[in-house]
């Protein structure tokens, strides 16, 4: 069934079709529609789930941690400052190896107050142990939430599905909503080996001394390594079942390219137009869409960029004091290759400013006219200094 949905409602549908049984959330723009829609689904009986109103995002995450521990598939959503408030609990969810799926609508952090698109909020949670998927369009929002549960429950890691404020959250696109039966036949019900059970009480999340802590944490890292394979398998299986395959990354015209443009989230769509246009003009340019940021697909990035001349990374984020985060991660991934491209890093579109085809074309031109990359990320589209 195709419907015209805003990105937020595509997320609600993803949760509903995944038959989540517990939702705890606190409202924050631009995420609120997601849980509003879910609360209506709960109240009118379309979704058999407990909707828990909580007093903060910290409590929302704590609540889904508790419900997942009892063996119940759970969902939450947040954004920006709300996600920041969850920080402590995000570590807990991953350390406890709970297959929670949450949606984060990427929004700038304050001050100055800004409710528009910016990846700074979720990238600041890079090291919490969550799988992070950066989504390009509304169809992918719905599909990624459903895939999220299958990935999460296979590797016992929480999954954060991220997409841009307003560009997706409030924008309506046609979305193919799969049948419940179809989803049920693809996504198994959640049946964990262990769950909090009064009949057979076990101690969870207790003290781990130095003699075992490092091993527990190594397990977490191992799970992320395994997740790379699982994300690919799940994306492929999803494609076979629903007709829309997904992977860790997506490549466009990369095979014979000399220059590879690298984007994530909604900025990928205008980049597609630019690459097509430049290809038509005879330029050897390709596009790499970074879909999964954690676990970082190091091997695939190495494989794609191994023999290229130039990589251009556009970041809608900044690690203060360093620069574009995707650019930095890519540099780290290819550093030990003997043949590796020059990596140009650009920061654009912070706080909801548009990343337009013209802007991307300007970036490509600027790279073509330069000898080598600047030491720091270059900021594109700034007002002149005087």
């Amino acid at each position, binding site marked *: 069934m195709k419907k015209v949905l805003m990105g937020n409602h595509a997320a609600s549908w993803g949760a509903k079709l995944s038959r989540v049984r517990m939702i705890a959330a606190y409202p924050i723009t631009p995420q609120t529609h997601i849980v509003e829609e879910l609360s209506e689904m709960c109240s009118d009986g379309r979704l058999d789930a407990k909707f828990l109103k909580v007093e903060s995002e910290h409590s929302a995450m704590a609540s889904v941690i508790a419900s997942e521990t009892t063996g119940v598939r759970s969902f939450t959503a947040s954004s920006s400052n709300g996600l920041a408030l969850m920080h402590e609990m995000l570590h807990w969810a991953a350390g406890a*190896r709970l297959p929670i799926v949450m949606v984060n609508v990427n929004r700038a952090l304050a001050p100055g107050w800004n409710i528009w698109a910016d990846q700074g909020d979720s990238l600041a949670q890079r090291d919490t142990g969550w799988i992070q998927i950066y989504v390009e369009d509304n169809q992918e929002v719905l599909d990624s939430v459903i895939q999220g549960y299958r990935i999460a429950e296979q590797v*016992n890691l929480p999954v954060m599905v991220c997409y841009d404020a307003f560009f997706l959250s409030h924008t309506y696109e046609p979305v193919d909503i799969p049948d419940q039966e179809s989803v049920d036949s693809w996504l198994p019900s959640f049946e964990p080996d*262990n769950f909090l059970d009064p009949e*057979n009480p076990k*101690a969870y999340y*207790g003290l781990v001394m130095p003699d*075992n802590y490092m091993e*527990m944490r*190594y*397990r977490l890292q191992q799970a992320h390594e395994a997740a790379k394979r699982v994300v690919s398998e799940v994306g492929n299986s999803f494609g076979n079942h629903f007709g829309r395959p997904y992977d860790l990354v997506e490549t466009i015209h990369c095979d014979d390219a000399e220059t590879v443009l690298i984007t994530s989230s909604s900025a990928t769509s205008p980049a597609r137009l630019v690459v097509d246009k430049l290809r038509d003009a005879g330029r050897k340019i390709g596009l790499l869409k970074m879909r999964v940021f954690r676990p970082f697909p190091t091997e695939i990035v190495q494989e794609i960029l191994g023999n290229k001349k130039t990589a251009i990374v556009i970041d809608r984020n900044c690690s203060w004091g360093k620069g574009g985060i995707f650019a930095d991660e890519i540099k780290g991934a290819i550093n030990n290759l003997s043949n590796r491209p020059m990596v140009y890093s650009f920061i654009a579109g912070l706080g909801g400013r548009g990343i337009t085809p013209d802007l991307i074309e300007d970036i490509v031109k600027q790279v073509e006219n330069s000898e080598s990359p600047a030491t720091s990320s270059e900021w594109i589209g700034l007002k002149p200094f005087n």
Partner: protein
Amino acid sequence: MSDEKPITYHNLGEMPEYVISEASMLWNKTGTWRYLAPRYLTQTPPCNQQCPAGNDVEGFIRLMEKGAIAEAAQLIREENPFPAVCGRVCYHPCETGCNRTQFDDPVAIHSLERVAAEQPFPATPPETGRPDSGKTVAIIGSGPSGLTAAYHLARMGHQPTVYEALDEPGGLLRYGIPAYRLPRNILKAEVDHITSCGVKIICGKRAGVDISWSDLNKSDAVFITVGVHRNRRLEIPAENTAGILPGLGFLESVAGGTPPRLGQHVIVIGGGNTAIDSARCALRLGSDVSIYYHRSRDEMPAFEEEVNEALKEGVKIHFLTQPVQFLTDNQHLAGIQLRETRLGSPDESGRRRPEPVPGSEFDIPVNTIITAIGETADLDWLPPEISHENNRITINLFGQTSLEKVFAGGDAALTEHNVTTAIGSGKLAACAIDAFLHNQDFTGIMPRITIGETGAVSVSRYLNHGDAHKKQGGPGKVVSFEDLNLAYFRKSARQKITTLDFNNRSSSFEEVNNGLSGEVTVIEAKRCFHCGVCTDCDNCYMFCPDIAILKKGPGEEGYRINMDYCKGCGICVNECPRAAMIMEKEQ
């Protein structure tokens, strides 16, 4: 503790994927963390302690809240056979003690008791399970103290006989309290109920005159509760002139249906309840009435409500004025000379002593003067073995006189003179006499049956029934306002009673106060905090973070604490709205 041995992991493959115990933790009773433990403890509500008649106030309100009005009335009768009387004439110290007073307004306990008493009388008094003892008790005086003692002694299986000097039973209830405060049919119904419970009342027999002490002394025990009927004299010139009436005598003649002719202008001397009752009666007989009292309003011993009603009805009260002499004209009363006073240093009663203001004398013409400056007991007939002092029979803590088998109570033995205190002394006497008749030492019993720390005794507890609602097992701390968790209470208006229109008061002895109407009774009862008594509100059950508080089985009230899992955090005790739980060191 566990028999489990620590597990050492030697390789990654042995380890769980996340932090979880290898086996069940059922062995680990987390209650071992605790160093203080919660306990359910019924504590004493202040109203219960404050009731001079020892009513289970909280208990009967709880029943009324559920609409069980008849059960509430029967509950009161386990302690007090006079709910209809007390619901009208008691000065309700329970309400003064009510913790709600510090929150908004006290629960209208007095009015609720009256509503309970409107229920039809039960066929029998509350069951005691006591067989006939064959013991006889002579009770001298049929006032509230004597009849209360007789009622409970009959319930306890004895044969009480009440001797009343006057024509009708009731003592001060009948002859002292005017009908507009206590209608005669209401009093008669409760007295009749007492006789139906096995009490024999013989009227017209004055002890020492119509029946000798030696005859009375043939009973297995005697309870003297003759009240105070001798009017105190002013001891000023011309006091024996016709037209000067003793207050209690005046009230008795009004109650007996033969009121004297008063004339237009009446003066009442005094500031106690007899003075106020006399003034309001005189007003109803068509006179204009002024009260003269030698101290100020603050020192007046009369109940405040009654003083207010008297003022509203048109009685004038002049403070700081004392009589000097009565004025006569040809042996007839012509007026009174009074003078102003001012308050000096406190006297032995703690009230400031009135001192005459020299040269302030003034005369007032008057038709009738009623003197009501206090009454004393007539004890001249008592045998010398029964000691008395200042016209009061000397008794020990539990009402026993200098003769082992003779007990005394009511106004003749107490300093405090009011109906409810008299009822309390009747209960104490009944318990003490019962113990005496069974050769038991009452000294050890008394603390167990005392309500709170300073309250009256409880007959239910004496009969080992616990308190009437089976919760308050023994003496306990009185719950203060600070002990309550006010987060769980909302302000709500106290329900008001209606009163007789003022136009109808100057000519009629119709009852002034009406009871609460049916629909507001439950609303008012629900205002009760139930200080110190569990109401199964579920707060402890809901707040316990360890699910260590469990409901008792079906059909049972209350909760139990699973000490295997209680960590002694005290949240249950903190969240109990009404201090029905305590934290304490474990035994």
